[in-house]
């Protein structure tokens, strides 16, 4: 970002903190894409991701007065988004525990060597928790400590979920090393 753009961004944030609706809408325009992408990668359905998007910006509009400006605005919005997405997962898993949290067993066709799954399909096959951890850690750049805190779990839980996810992706994507 160049100096002018940075200054513009600061002006928008200052105005948004005062509740200026135009500035709040500008924030939505700037960050709704990344928020939705994060939500969609964590949630199972587009409807859930859209709800998370709405929940996130509702919270942003209400709480931006409390944003102290330490750390980037995107870092703050993203933490709101990931916490809303994880909250949505917890709520949905409550209903769908058996279906979604059960260990995925590939069908004979999927498990047969030489038949690779595409990455999107493989991600969809992960349990919701494992997928959320992969996305937050490997793509969004959260640390295991941060994930553990957001999920209300331990650091070793986050680490083992990540390892479990990669072990499965490795097989489903046909990434096994042959030496």
């Amino acid at each position: 970002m160049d100096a002018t753009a940075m200054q513009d961004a600061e002006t928008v944030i200052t105005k948004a903190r005062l509740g200026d609706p135009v500035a709040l809408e500008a924030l939505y325009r700037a960050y709704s894409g990344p928020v939705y992408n994060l939500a969609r990668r964590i949630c199972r359905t587009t409807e859930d991701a859209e709800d998370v998007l709405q929940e996130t910006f509702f919270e942003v509009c209400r709480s931006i007065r409390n944003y102290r400006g330490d750390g980037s605005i995107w870092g703050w919005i993203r933490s709101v988004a990931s916490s809303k997405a994880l909250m949505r997962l917890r709520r949905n898993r409550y209903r769908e525990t058996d279906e979604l949290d059960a260990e995925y067993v590939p069908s004979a066709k999927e498990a047969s060597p030489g038949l690779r799954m595409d990455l999107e399909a493989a991600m969809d096959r992960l349990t919701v928790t494992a997928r959320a951890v992969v996305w937050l850690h490997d793509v969004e750049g959260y640390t295991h400590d941060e994930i553990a805190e957001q999920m209300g779990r331990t650091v070793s839980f986050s680490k083992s979920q990540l390892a479990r996810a990669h072990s499965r992706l490795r097989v489903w994507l046909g990434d096994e090393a042959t030496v």
Partner: protein
Amino acid sequence: MTTSHLTMEQLLAVRDGDRSEPAYADAHQHVGECDGCRLELDRLHQRTARLRALPRMTPARNQFPAVRTRVVAERRQRRLRAVGIGGLAIAASLALVVMGRDLVQPNRLDAEQQIATAKSESQQLEQKLHDWDPQSRVLNSRAAVMVMEIEDRIADLDVRLAQTQESDRQLVLWQQRVGLMNTLVEVHLTRASNVGF
């Protein structure tokens, strides 16, 4: 050097430079000496790169109007609490107000009575807005911005009202509030359209 190949957890620790992982140094050394584990590590890096390169998904709908509606509704609730009425209490307080007004001549009203009148006008306007049911209607962006600005000013007045003891000052603030409420109702009634169904 460890004899068996690395687990996924150890490979991840090496990839992330996670020295808190037990036997990190051994795992790191093992990768340097084992072709198989080095290849697994490369594939892990590649898989991570592919994850990061997945296409970005974009929302099909603009959610901001819905967000704005919720923000406005929440502010309205706060406003109603500020004038001391909430939902069902509105109708009852109005009935008293209307009766009271007929009995008192305007020129004989002292400050306290005038405040009561302004307060009741505020409540009537809140009721009118409540009956209009703004949440079932759509405002265009410009009108929505106006609504939010007026609501901010009302919220500001409510804060000042809560801090003011002196009745003359309170009267001025309440009268300003009535003016703003009138404008707010007018914007809603003239600028909104029904939700399309």
